[in-house]
């Protein structure tokens, strides 16, 4: 069963505890130039999660501040893992899309594949690797919540079984007028482990819209699934043709030799003649 995190945007006060917890647990450096909290916050190789601040208007036209936590969404069908030919990105049984640095060849296909622009490259390093949120897979394996979820003082985030969280989210948005009637992450690119509910439209908060509900790997799956058959068939075909061509050549050569045998004497005389001369 896939685990998940339900984020209630309306409860966030922007304290940034989650970003600090992520730094502490994953031993990440603080970027002196790129903040992990506030209006200029940005995900990068050191910031696996950030909390952005947006000035928006609520349904009554009141100016409000909203904070949106960003990190890897942990897709149910991750495009990054699909694009990775060295299997450095793998989705585990809890649903966490984990990155294995010692398998990575540094091709950065995952960065191109990710619809949320999450994997980041260590541009400043001589031998760069990819970085991204791991959903604290080692904590989750022990039954603990991811570090960011554990520290949140206002209970913005809830960790649990994704299916149950989804049900809870739907109950909540049905019951409370405050919320928009949509759960971000339920269907986006086939569904993600991170689910969000909000009172402000998601696109205003910096969430990508129009991603569709089809898992990205399925687009390529329809034809990439034929790759083994095509590769094998093509090989068989070429091998067969190769055999055929060789056999034909052999036969042709043999016939030529036979023909050459009938006119052979004349030639031999000529050779003899040369030697004598």
């Amino acid at each position, binding site marked *: 069963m896939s685990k998940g995190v339900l984020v209630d*945007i309306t409860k966030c006060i922007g*304290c940034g*505890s989650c970003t*600090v917890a992520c730094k502490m647990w994953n031993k990440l450096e603080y970027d002196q130039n790129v903040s992990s909290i506030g209006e200029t916050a940005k995900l990068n190789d050191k910031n696996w999660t950030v909390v952005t601040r947006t000035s928006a208007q609520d349904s009554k036209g009141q100016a409000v501040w909203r904070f949106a936590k960003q990190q890897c969404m942990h897709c149910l069908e991750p495009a990054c893992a699909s694009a990775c030919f060295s299997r450095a990105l793998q989705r585990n049984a809890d649903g966490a899309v984990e990155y294995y640095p010692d398998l990575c060849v540094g091709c950065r296909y995952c960065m191109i594949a990710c619809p949320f622009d999450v994997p980041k490259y260590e541009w400043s390093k001589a031998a760069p690797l990819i970085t991204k949120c791991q959903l604290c897979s080692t904590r989750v394996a022990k039954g603990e919540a991811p570090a960011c*979820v554990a520290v949140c003082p206002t209970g913005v985030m809830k960790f649990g079984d994704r299916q149950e969280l989804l049900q809870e989210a739907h109950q909540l948005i049905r019951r409370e007028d405050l919320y928009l009637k949509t759960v971000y992450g339920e269907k986006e690119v086939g569904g993600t482990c991170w689910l969000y509910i909000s009172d402000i439209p998601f696109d205003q908060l910096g969430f990508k819209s129009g991603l569709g509900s089809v898992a990205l790997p399925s687009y390529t799956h329809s034809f990439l699934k034929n790759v083994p058959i095509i590769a094998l068939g093509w090989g068989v075909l070429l091998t067969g043709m190769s055999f055929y061509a060789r056999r034909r050549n052999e036969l042709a050569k043999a016939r030529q030799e036979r023909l050459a045998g009938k006119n052979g004497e004349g030639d031999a005389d000529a050779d003899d003649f040369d030697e004598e001369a």
Partner: protein
Amino acid sequence: MVGAGAVVAGCASEPAGGKGWMPNQYNVAANWPVQVKGRVPIDSSNPAIDRDDTKCILCGQCLEVCKNVVSVYGYYELPIQNDITCIHCGQCTMWCPTGAITERNEIKKVQAALASADQHVIVQTAPAIRVALGEEFNLPPGSLVQGQQVTALKKAGFDAVFDTSWSADLTIMEEASELIKRLTTGKALPHFTSCCPGWVKFAEYFYADLQPHLSSCKSPQQMLGAVAKSYYAKEKGIAPEQIFSVAVMPCTAKKFECQRPEMNAAGILRGNPAIRDVDVVLTTRELANLLKSNGIDLSRLVDTPYDSVLGESTGAGVIFGATGGVTEAAVRTAYYLVTRQDPPAALLQWENVRGLKGVKEASVELPGVGTVKVAVCHGLRDARVVLEKVRKQQSDWHFIEFMACPGGCIGGGGQPRTSLPPSDEVRKARMANLYKLDGTAVKRASYQNKEVMDLYQKFLHAPLSEESESLLHTHYVDRSHQLKPKEKV
């Protein structure tokens, strides 16, 4: 080969991340609650306090004090409006074990002013500094260093060193006059004190409906600032533009207060609204750092008196630094204002309003006015009990003193971190020496302050005069739209 094999097999030793640590309270199964967690939100534009994320360990202490002592965090509904609610009291800086939360450091601004040749740099020190600054120089808690700190500030290069106790006496002249006016007209009672900027912002957020009760008097810091760039400038023949006014406060909220847009009374009087009444506020801790960076050891200095004409103080002005002090000082002068007689000995040692009890109540007989009932609150969670009674019109108090920090200014958010978390032992030691200073003073009541009386005679004419109103009084902002208070916590 092994690597290539691992790649082909798609297996490896371990995934990235997870090599760090978390405080122990967070290392429990997800279905168990964590009680003490997270941290307070601090906006990057907060004028009073600042946080270094690299030092934060998410111990949760800042939230504990913000919720359980100050009663700000957890007292407003979510979602928030367009503001990160903070009253700038700085109690979180006192509790933060790693020193991640501090005041917004402004030492450099003061150093630049001191280095500038054409600026006349003045400084005022709050009543509570003199019983706390010594702790930064290894003296026992509460050590009285009034004379030494003046010497130290002179050595550091300040052109004039003034006493906020002087303007505390001035505040009392205004506030006691205002109180008597309210008592005789029966309007806007109970009268709320307004010298604590943390409390004022708290009231603007949570009790905006009770705003008419707030005294219109500015705090002593802002009164001295306004008077320094008008009266003092005139007396000394210095252009207000040339004066750089520094205030040393036991408080971080004072940094916010001096930046309030309306705090430019002297500038308006001058016709140059850009002039701020107080330019920079330093906390006690920042002053200690400034002195140490100049190699000045406070404990080895001789005493120097404060400078005239804003330097004389009475015992009443000094006890402003402790909870109950404003009330005691106000009543001493109110007694005089209605009777034209010195207050009786009991009012010079008014034990009922002293001490660390959360809410103190007392009453006093003012001849000609009647019985005046007072309440004294420090620590805003306790204040809520009193405020709710006033809101429901279930109170019979006439005068209520509010201080955001436990113990009053001596326990302020800008004071030395002598014990962690702050302890009553240290608070008591500081209070004891303030009351000792009052007890041994020749003048015990604000109306006896000659320099204050000179100000009225030469410049302001009388308490609550037009001149006094424009320089020494202020108005408040309704911040109730910036949050939705919780009905029940």
